[in-house]
């Protein structure tokens, strides 16, 4: 293989302690022409302060409309090896667990059919194979799928669901985030691979309200584990934390948002009635405090980045849903939500935007859910609201 292109600007990004993406691209570029042109084009971007990629189009693997994102250099004459340089998304493992063998298997295929550059992982949680030519797509897909790996979502489809580490390695998880993720991924394979929605639809599942997967900020359907019982207290463990330097009054009791805790220097007390399950005390004293009783999830809908109406956080639709395999209630609810979206959604309108446009009442009645004060921060402030004909009863005392 010929020498690497001169990259004086990018070389500056190989300095400093943090691991360098430039070094990674150079490693690949030493043995791969696509990676070499990627490196050269990136240097040009750094020189000109602009990107040189075009997107969209018609590439994919036969039968699917998702999993491959068309990407083309806008300078194909200068960088012919990345003239077409498409992203391939591979559906990741729930909880992002891998084995050395699986990683090496992927490397072998990707060195043969692609640039040798990857992301572990992309923002949505797919394994990103960063760039290959159109003619490599089918053989690449055959290599992966014959070994039991499939493509992830893209376009107006269900996107690859992802989750926090959950019960695999966390004591706080109220639900089996990995199993829920795997189960909905398998259930909705058609929706994942054949983009039939008005726009994208993301699921993210977090085991508790700490929300390590940022579910509430970036999923159309946020599934967040919670519980209904009391918090069990191990008073000896509370003492252990105190002995190890924790100021229980200051760091735990005073930080409780609902003021439901007290500590007299001997016994920590919680008025469970008033607890809102924010997770602060449990996260700080994980040895001492444990949720008890019924477990389940809060289902929230609607978060997304700013386009078009400004960023939104997901809001509560179902305050508590039991979460046991095969998750029939969740799946039925999801189908109902998609049906509503299919009926009324415009092209590129996310589910949250649709609900805001048509109103919560319209949505709740369609999916058959009763209003609940947990759905709002506070009731409306304005005196303008709808009544339906059937709610106006003549000669009624109300």
């Amino acid at each position, binding site marked *: 293989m010929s020498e690497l292109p001169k990259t004086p600007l990018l070389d500056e990004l190989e300095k400093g302690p943090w691991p360098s993406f430039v070094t990674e691209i150079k490693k690949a570029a030493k043995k791969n022409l696509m990676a070499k042109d990627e490196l050269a084009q990136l240097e040009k971007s750094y020189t000109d302060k602009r990107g040189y990629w075009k997107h969209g189009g018609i590439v994919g693997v036969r039968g699917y409309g998702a999993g491959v994102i068309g990407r083309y250099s806008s300078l194909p004459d200068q960088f012919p090896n990345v003239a077409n340089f498409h992203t391939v998304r591979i559906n990741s493992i729930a909880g992002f667990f891998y084995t050395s063998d699986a990683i090496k298997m992927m490397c072998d295929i990707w060195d043969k059919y692609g640039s040798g550059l990857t992301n572990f992982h992309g923002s949505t949680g797919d394994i990103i194979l960063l760039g290959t030519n159109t003619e490599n797509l089918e053989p690449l897909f055959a290599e992966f799928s014959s070994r039991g790996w499939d493509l992830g979502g893209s376009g107006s489809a269900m996107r690859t669901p992802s989750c926090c580490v959950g019960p695999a390695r966390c004591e706080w998880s109220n639900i089996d985030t990995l199993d829920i993720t795997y189960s909905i991924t398998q259930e909705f394979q058609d929706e994942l691979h054949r983009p039939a929605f008005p*726009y994208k639809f993301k699921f993210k599942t977090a085991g508790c309200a700490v929300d390590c997967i940022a579910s509430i900020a970036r999923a159309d359907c946020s599934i967040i584990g919670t519980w209904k019982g009391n918090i069990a207290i191990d008073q000896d463990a509370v003492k252990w934390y105190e002995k190890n330097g924790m100021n229980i009054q200051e760091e735990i009791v005073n930080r409780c948002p609902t003021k439901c805790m007290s500590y007299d220097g001997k016994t920590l007390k919680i008025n469970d009635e008033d607890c809102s399950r924010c997770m602060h005390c449990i996260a700080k004293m994980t040895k001492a405090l444990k949720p008890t009783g019924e477990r389940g999830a809060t289902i929230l809908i609607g978060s997304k980045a700013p386009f078009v109406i400004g960023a939104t956080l997901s809001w509560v639709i179902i305050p508590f849903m039991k979460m046991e395999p095969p998750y029939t209630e969740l799946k039925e609810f999801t189908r109902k939500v998609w049906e509503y979206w299919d009926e009324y959604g415009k092209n590129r309108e996310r589910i949250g935007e649709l609900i805001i446009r048509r109103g919560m009442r319209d949505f709740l009645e369609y999916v058959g859910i009763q209003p609940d004060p947990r759905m709002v921060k506070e009731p409306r402030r304005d005196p303008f609201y709808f009544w339906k004909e059937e709610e106006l009863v003549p000669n009624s005392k109300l």
Partner: protein
Amino acid sequence: MDKEELKQKIYSLVEQSMGKKKLKQSDIEKKISEEAGVTRQDVKAALKELIDEGKLIYTYFGGSFVEIPPKQ
């Protein structure tokens, strides 16, 4: 309506809207199921065959659509 006939109807619809309006899968399902008096599931199954055969493809232009593949 038999499946081949349904497939032909879907293909014609996509062909006719080429250059006028890009169709989403749901546009096709809604329109054809109404016109042909079949279920959306039937239309979906026929469309899937057309796509598996490569006669129609999914495209992406700021959203996903169903179109006729360009001539090579």
